[in-house]
């Protein structure tokens, strides 16, 4: 099957310091991928390179086998196909919950207001936030904000959603409500790349686990297999540190 996203020898340096040291990755349609690794290993940088929030230093990012680096595809159109959900939510503070989900559709996709609203309501209902459409982000809890952010992402009807530690900024009691939504999406066949420290989610929900260490993919494979029998020493060390 055709790859949705392909990373080819992706490298990224910040002022001369190499953070990503050559990442190769192929992501198929409907795949749910968990990206794990210790803090500072380059997970966020990889996601941000995929949707071009960071400028790639060398290598290539392909979307359906077309380079998004060399301008084969319009960047903004590409971004609207692979939207991102952030650790800090990044909801638009000047808009209501509903507007957060409607405005990107009308502005970026050129949908009519009615169509956009209907679509937004569908996903706000899905994440259990339909009651709060007139609230402002500042009035919501972290878990609610993240669910709205997911609804905003879904409202674009993207092919892929990139999640960058979507539950790391949440109080523990709110992690569950967000993970539940994500689990549901995974079950429906959405293509997802999830950077996470939720090992249970990585093991039980994803189709593949990617372990990143010091800017390279150190090990990857079937989640059950990976968590039961990590092959590399670094993965073993990471898991034993994490699970204890």
């Amino acid at each position, binding site marked *: 099957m055709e790859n949705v996203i392909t990373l080819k020898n992706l490298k990224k340096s910040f002022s001369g310091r190499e953070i990503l040291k050559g990442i190769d990755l192929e992501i198929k349609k409907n795949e749910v991928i968990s990206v794990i690794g210790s803090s500072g290993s380059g997970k966020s940088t990889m996601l941000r390179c995929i949707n071009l929030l960071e400028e790639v230093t060398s290598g290539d990012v392909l979307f359906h086998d077309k380079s998004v680096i060399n301008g084969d595809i319009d960047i903004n159109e590409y971004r609207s196909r692979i939207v991102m959900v952030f650790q800090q939510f990044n909801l638009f503070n000047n808009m209501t919950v509903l507007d957060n989900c409607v405005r990107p559709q009308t502005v970026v996709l050129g949908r009519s207001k009615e169509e956009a609203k209907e679509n937004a309501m569908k996903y706000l209902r899905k994440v259990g936030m339909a009651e709060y459409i007139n609230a402002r982000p500042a009035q919501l*809890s972290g878990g609610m904000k993240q669910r709205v952010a997911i609804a905003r992402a879904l409202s674009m009807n993207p092919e892929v959603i990139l999640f960058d530690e979507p539950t790391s900024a949440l109080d523990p009691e709110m992690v569950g409500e967000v993970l539940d939504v994500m689990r549901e999406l995974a079950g429906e066949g959405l293509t997802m790349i999830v950077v996470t420290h939720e090992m249970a989610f990585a093991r039980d929900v994803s189709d593949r686990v990617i372990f990143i260490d010091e800017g390279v993919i150190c090990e990857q494979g079937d989640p059950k297999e990976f968590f039961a029998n990590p092959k590399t020493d670094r993965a073993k060390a990471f898991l034993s540190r994490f699970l204890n």
Partner: protein
Amino acid sequence: MNLFEWIVKLWEENWELFLNGTKNTLIMALVGTIMGFLIGLIIAIIRTIPTSKNTNIIAKVLLKAINFILNAYIEIIRGTPMMVQAVIIYYSLFVPMQLDPMISAIIIISFNTGAYMAEIVRGGIISIDKGQFEGARAIGMDHVQTMFHVVLPQAIRNIMPSIGNEFVVNIKDSSVLNIIAITELMFVAKQAGGTYAKPVPAYIITAVIYFILTFTVTRILRLVEKKLAGSDSYTICGSQSDPNAEIHVKKAKEEFR
């Protein structure tokens, strides 16, 4: 006659002139501030356009050139007195064009204000959390869409006090435009005081008018600011699917704290 009697006499003889001057001062300050704000907005949007190594070379060079010109404009305007700018521009450009003096004055004050506003708006944009930009860019909005839909509404709200301040400054600083014979307040003061060689009472009248203008405007602006700040804590009404939404949100807010 004592000073007070002179003030009364000059006012009685010239009140129409003074009111007309007040009108012109207010028009120049108001239109100049609004136009200046629009100029500042456009400049700030241009100056925050991001470039990457993939931006094509012609666009890059063009942007560099435009930015250079904009920077020069801002530095020169901010680095020289408006009176000097007015004389040079008016006599070398607008007089040969036979442009109406009032229009000329408004153009001058607009471009002068624009340079200050560009910096104010830029400050407002910089003060907005980076996550707001990234949230917009990551979903496919381009620079201008990000600015208009997400960043500027927040930035403008934050810089409202500075914009109001520019208006007050313009009420006072437009006085230097009497140099190109605009019949604003200062010009009227000179005229009225000149008839009897009595500048002080004429200028006292002018000072009182300026003070009333700036004082009133400052109060009004403060009210507007309060209104704007207040809308953060508005109530949620009209939720379509849940009559208790307001209660839910209140609860959610408490939990979050």
